[in-house]
């Protein structure tokens, strides 16, 4: 099965890259964009077949490596 991990900076942590993207969009005339947050998506191919166990494993991977929980939050989709 597959897991998709979304890693984002936590709310309240300034995202300078998102801000730069927002400015660039404004320069292109998209003046309705009020905020941009940039994160990353990590896709994992898993040999695990039990969705519950897969989620548990991927949660642990996020805590140990995939996200830095000092500044980032994560969410996991299993499919």
């Amino acid at each position, binding site marked *: 099965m597959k897991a998709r991990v979304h890693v984002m900076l936590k709310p309240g942590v300034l995202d*300078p890259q998102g801000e*730069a993207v927002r400015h660039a969009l404004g320069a292109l005339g998209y003046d309705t964009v009020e905020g941009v947050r940039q994160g990353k998506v990590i896709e994992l191919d898993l040999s695990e077949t039990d969705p519950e166990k897969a989620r548990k494993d991927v949660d642990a991977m996020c805590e*140990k490596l995939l996200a*830095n929980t*000092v*500044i980032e939050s994560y969410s996991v989709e299993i499919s």
Partner: protein
Amino acid sequence: MRAAVLVFPGSNCDRDMAVALRTAGADVTMVWHKDTNLPEGLDVVAIPGGFSFGDYLRCGAIAGRSPICRSVIDFANRGGFVLGVCNGFQILTETGLLPGALMRNAGLKFVCKSVGLRVETTESAFTSGYVKDQVISIPIAHHDGNYNLSPDDLAALQDQHRIAFRYDANPNGSVDNIAGVLSENRRVLGMMPHPERAVDPAHPSTDGQPFFASLLEQMANT
């Protein structure tokens, strides 16, 4: 004094660090990241600057989980001295030996220049050769030096006088102008500026000399 300098794929300040330590009088061993054990009888581990593992995932994230870093964590927990400069500071935050995290510079640019650093505490083996509030000139060269941490962790650093250096003029957006921080036992120091690039008469500044000299002196006395 016996020192080890860690080497990761992508480290690029490892030899400069070794030269600075040797010049100050240390016996230096280079240690590859896949090694599981540090040399016996070690006093100091230095984690150098560079781009370990190409900064993949996050700066210092992969290196922080490498086999040798497990030994470095044990070494620090036993009271060993650990210095992390630039990418080494990022690695130390990723291991959890130091609080906080280093994010992309607020101005989004790689900043490479000499900066004024204020010595905020002389109560550590790394900073005892300076005078408190002394401003020294040390180079920085980083893209991700924007130090960020929770208000509680920041209050703890301030209350325990664990901020070792502050920038005179903030180059990267770091909280409270922080350039370097100490662990609770004051034996682990992480800093973005490069003291090892300010030791030789051919360098623009030699303000890094007291940094290594005091470290050597403290080791000789313990």
